[in-house]
C-alpha cells in the first residue's frame, strides 16, 4: 500500500506544487542571507525610500534595507516552524509508540495526559510564557512542541495498536525479539507515512503561530520575523509604501503556509487509509 501511495503522490499536482514552493522558499531561507547586498540591521540608509537599484524593495522607517530584512525574516520563520514541527513530531511519536507498546496503566495515564494537553489552547500558554519571560524564539518553538504532541501521539498509538496484533509482529515476538527491537525495527519504520503527514501539519501550524505571536508583539522587537515586518508595515499602511513594504512579507508568508497546506492535504489524501477513497 505504501509503495503504491508513494508512486501515486508523485503524480498529484497539489503535492508537486506544494513541494516546489517549499523547496524554493527553503533555498531562499538558506542561501538568501548570503546573497542579499545589505546587513538587515544596518540603519544607515535614508528611511522610507521607494525601491531603487541599490534597495530593490526600498527602505523601512528605521532606514533598513527591506529586501535583506525579508530574507532574514523568512529564515527565522522557517527555523521556528521546522524546530517546533520536528520536536513536536519526535515527542508525539515516542509517546505514541511507548503508550501502545506498554499498554495497561502507562497507556491510560499517557493518553489522559494527552487529552488534557490537547484541551488547553496552546496560543494562550505561549502568550503567557512570552509575556512573562520574553524567551528566545527557539524556547518558544520548543514550548509549542510541548503543547502540540498529543495529536501525533494519538494517531501513532492507534496505528501501532493495529500493527501490534498483526502476524509478522507476533512472529517477531515468538522469535524472541525484545520490545526495543520490535519498536525500532518494525513499528517505527512501518508508520513512516504518518510522520510525514504530522511533520507537515505541525510545521504549518508553527509557522502560522510564529507569524501571529510576532504580530501580537510577543517577540523581541529587534528580532527579524515575517509577522513583525507585517506588524510594523501595517502602522504605515495608508502611505504609498505598502506595495514594497507590506506586500512582500504577506506574499512570502502566504506562499509558505500554502506550500505546507498543499503538501499536508496531499499526504493525508494519499496515505490515510480512510481518506484514500475520497481522492
Amino acid at each position: 500500500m505504501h509503495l503504491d501511495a508513494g508512486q501515486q503522490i508523485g503524480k498529484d499536482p497539489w503535492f508537486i506544487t506544494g513541494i516546489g514552493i517549499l523547496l524554493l522558499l527553503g533555498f531562499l531561507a538558506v542561501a538568501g542571507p548570503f546573497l542579499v547586498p545589505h546587513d538587515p540591521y544596518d540603519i544607515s540608509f535614508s528611511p522610507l525610500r521607494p525601491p531603487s537599484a541599490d534597495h530593490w524593495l526600498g527602505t523601512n522607517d528605521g532606514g533598513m534595507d527591506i529586501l535583506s530584512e525579508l530574507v532574514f525574516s523568512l529564515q527565522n520563520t522557517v527555523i521556528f516552524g521546522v524546530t517546533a514541527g520536528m520536536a513536536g513530531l519526535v515527542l508525539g511519536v515516542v509517546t505514541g509508540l511507548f503508550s501502545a507498546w506498554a499498554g495497561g496503566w502507562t497507556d491510560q495515564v499517557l493518553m489522559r495526559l494527552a487529552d488534557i494537553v490537547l484541551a488547553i489552547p496552546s496560543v494562550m500558554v505561549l502568550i503567557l510564557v512570552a509575556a512573562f519571560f520574553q524567551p528566545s524564539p527557539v524556547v518558544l518553538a520548543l514550548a509549542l512542541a510541548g503543547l502540540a504532541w498529543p495529536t501525533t501521539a494519538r494517531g501513532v498509538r492507534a496505528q501501532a495498536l493495529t500493527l501490534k496484533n498483526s502476524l509478522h509482529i507476533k512472529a517477531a515476538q515468538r522469535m524472541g525479539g525484545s520490545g526495543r527491537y520490535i519498536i525500532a525495527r518494525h513499528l517505527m519504520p512501518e508508520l513512516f507515512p504518518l510522520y510525514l503527514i504530522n511533520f507537515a501539519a505541525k510545521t504549518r501550524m508553527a509557522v502560522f503561530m510564529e507569524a501571529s505571536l510576532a504580530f501580537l508583539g510577543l517577540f523581541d522587537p529587534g528580532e527579524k520575523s515575517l509577522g513583525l515586518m507585517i506588524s510594523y508595515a501595517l502602522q504605515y499602511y495608508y502611505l504609498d509604501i505598502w506595495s514594497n513594504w507590506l506586500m512582500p512579507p504577506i506574499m512570502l508568508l502566504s506562499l509558505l503556509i500554502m506550500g505546507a497546506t498543499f503538501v499536508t492535504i496531499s499526504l493525508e489524501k494519499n496515505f490515510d487509509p480512510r481518506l484514500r477513497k475520497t481522492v
Partner: protein
Amino acid sequence: MRIWKKKWSTPVLVYLTAALLMAYASFRLPHLLPGDFVTAMYAGSDVTLNAEQEAELRAFYQNTDGFQGYLRNLATLDWGYSHAFMAPVSQLFLQALPWTLLLMGTAHVLSTLLGFVLGVEAAWRRGSLLEKAGVGIMTVLEGIPEICSGVLLLLVFALSFGWFPAAGAQMAYADHTFGQWLADVVHHLTLPLATLILAYLPGNFLLARAGMVMVLESWFVLTARAKGLPPVRVRYAHAARNALLPMVTRFGLRFAFMITGALVVETIFSYPGLGTLLFNAIAMRDLPLVQGIVLFSSIMVLVVNLGMEYVYHLLDPRVGHAS
C-alpha cells in the same frame, strides 16, 4: 440526571484539570521570575507607576493566600487592576467580551453552515467541473492565513475603495436611532467577519466534502435512492447528517488555530474585542491584564470544547457504547 452517566466523568475531569492547570500556571509563573520583576517589567513600559502603585502590584503578585486564595479571587472577579487603562481587569474584559463573541460567533455559525452545505453539494456532484473548481479554490484559500487575507481586505476595501471603515466597531459619539446603530455595527463588522469566514470556511468545506464522499458509498444511501426518494431528501435527511460527525470531532482540534486567527484579525481592524485589548496589554506590558485575558479566554475555550464533546455524544450514540 441522565447526562451525568459514567461516560461523562472522563471528559469533565479532563477539562477541569486543564482549567486548573492554566490557573496554576498563571498563579505560579510570576513567582518563577528572578528578582524584582515588577520594577523590571514596568521599566520598559509606556506606563509609569508611582511608588504606591508599584507596592500595590507587588502585593498583588506576592499573594500570601496561596493557590486557594488565588482561585477565590478569580471567582469573585477580583483579577487585579490594569494600570495602563486605569480600570479593574474584570471590567475591561467584560467590556471587550461582547464584541469578540459577536465577531467569532457570527463567523463560526456562518462558516460552518455555509461550509457544510457547500461541502455536501460538492460531494454530491463529485467528478464534475464545478466540484473540482470548488475543491481547488478552497484548498488555495486554506493556505492563506488570516494575517494576510485581513491586511489585503483592509488595503482594498477600506483604503482603496473606502467602502468600509478601517477600525472600530461603531461610530463614536454618533446620535443614532436603534436601526441606524445596527446598520453601523454591521458595517463595521463586515471586513473582520469576511476575513474570519475566509479563514474558517475552507476547512469546514473540505471536511464536510470528505465526510460526505465516504457516506455516499454506504448501502443505506443506495437503498434510499432505490426507494425513489427525491434527491434533496437523500442528500440531507439520509446522508448529510452522517457527514456531520467528522466536523464536530475536528472542531476542537481546529479551535486553537481559530482563536489565534481571531486575535490577529481584531488587531488588524482595531476591533474593540479581547484580541485588541490583549495586543494593547502586551504592548504596554500590563501583566495583570494579559493574565486575566489569557486565563478567562482559555476557560471559555475549554467550556466550548466540553460542549462540543457533549454534542458529539448526542449526535453519535455509538461513542457512548464504545467507551
